[in-house]
């Protein structure tokens, strides 16, 4: 299998304690992979490890076959990993346009910004507004657009629907589904595992800093043990 993102035996954490305990994960090109798990399972920590934000890390992270484990954060971003963090995902004092223009490693910057405005029309109408003045939904669109500026090969989304009102959740999942259609592989961290698996190809469930279960989205949704332990009540 030729993975775009490949994670092998990842261990590490914020201090001496390991949060990730030997984690393996593969992401195929244009695939949506849901990473689920209870609060504190290490989902955000995994995202930080992929981006290079974790203070202590061993194991390997490869992007399209290249080992990027030792690359600094900004170099990984430019190499083609987009990231929408769980919190603080825009620059509040910069305008919408500035939030997009500030991204480094974008070829054809002006045109790319316009492409983002076509993709996210709500942003185009307010391009001079400070990002800090945006609503939750607009802010998330801006965070997506910022992460997509470099035409990333992999996008890591950390609980993108957590801060949204229920009415916006469906819309957000639809947008995520369309990301994969642009060719980017999506690592989608979600608490709303059922809804997320509905738009995903595969899923992995984290427990204690390693992958406890994984499989195709259909398999996981049909699995009684996954349902009982991790996916919560069926709505």
């Amino acid at each position, binding site marked *: 299998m030729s993975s775009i993102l490949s994670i092998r035996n990842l261990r590490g954490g914020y201090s001496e304690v390991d949060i990730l305990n030997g984690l393996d994960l593969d992401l195929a090109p244009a695939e949506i992979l849901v990473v689920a798990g209870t609060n504190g399972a290490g989902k955000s920590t995994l995202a930080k490890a992929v*981006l290079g*934000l974790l203070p202590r890390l061993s194991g390997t992270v490869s992007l399209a076959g290249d080992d990027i484990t030792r690359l*600094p*954060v*900004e170099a990984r*971003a*430019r190499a083609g990993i987009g*990231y929408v*963090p769980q919190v*603080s*995902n*825009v*620059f*509040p*004092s*910069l305008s919408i346009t*500035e939030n997009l*223009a*500030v*991204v*480094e*490693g974008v070829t054809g910057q002006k045109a790319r910004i316009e492409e983002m405005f076509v993709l996210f029309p709500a942003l185009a109408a307010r391009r001079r507004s400070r990002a800090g003045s945006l609503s939750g939904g607009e802010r998330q669109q801006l965070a997506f657009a*910022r992460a997509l*500026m*470099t035409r990333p090969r992999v996008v890591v989304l950390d609980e993108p629907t957590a801060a949204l009102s229920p009415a916006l959740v469906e819309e957000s999942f639809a947008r995520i589904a369309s990301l994969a259609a642009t060719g980017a592989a999506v690592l989608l961290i979600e608490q709303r595992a059922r809804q997320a698996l509905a738009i995903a190809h595969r899923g992995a469930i984290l427990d204690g800093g390693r992958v406890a279960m994984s499989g195709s989205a259909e398999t996981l949704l049909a699995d009684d043990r996954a349902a009982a332990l991790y996916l919560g009540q069926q709505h």
Partner: protein
Amino acid sequence: MISFAELALNGIVSGLVIGLAALAVTLVFGIARFANAATGDVMTLGAYAALSGAGLTGSLVLGGLFGAAAGAVVGLIGYWLVFRKLGGRSSVAALLASIGVAFMIRAVMGVAFGHGQKVFPMPMVRPWRILDIRVHPNDVNLCAVVLVTLAIVFAILHLTPIGRQMRAVADDPSLARVSGISPQKVMMALWALAGAVSGVAGTVVGIKTVVSPEMGWELLLPAFAAAILGGIGHAGGAIVAGIALGIVQEVATPFVGFTYKIALSFVVLLAVLLVRPKGLFGTVAGAR
């Protein structure tokens, strides 16, 4: 007899200088996240460089550019040798290190230029009388220099890619990195810019008063006070607060006397910290 209007006018000049120094403080605070106590002594160094530059070239303007360049170079050296290595440590460590850098610069200035006071060779010009207020052409020129410097700094911050990146790092350093922004590049731009601003501020103080190894250190407290009053990390706030502080200091001088006017900064500093810690223009507690 010196009228209140003239005192206030003087206050605007010294306030603009305090504002420039506060701008240097607030830029470093917003982006490198510590109170840089070496700001005042980089001003001193800028003043001496400007004095030497003016002596060599016979031009005050070129001298001022020397001052700005020297400030930028020392800012970069300080970053490269000291503050870069403290990145990720507590801001107290960086503050203490900056006090050390301040003493070193001051000592070197004392050895290199002596401890006596020096003055810029300024032509004597008769003051203008406008509505019975004496206005010194030199003061007008100095105001113009400060305003042009401010315009350049704001243009860099708001109209250039590196300025945009500096503001992004001030907003959120880790989001900046995941957006591909190199922290080192931004830090070098920051230290060069803050150093150049300090160098210009020192030159203006030197022209307005005298040049001595202690001049910048004495301006540090008003600069900190203005930076905090303006909302720490808020560039425009630093300027407005600096001007306000300068006017208050000058207008109060007849009442409190020359020696105590500096203490006013301290009173303002304490009052702001107690009453409105985020300053006049700050929106969020902490660095922004």
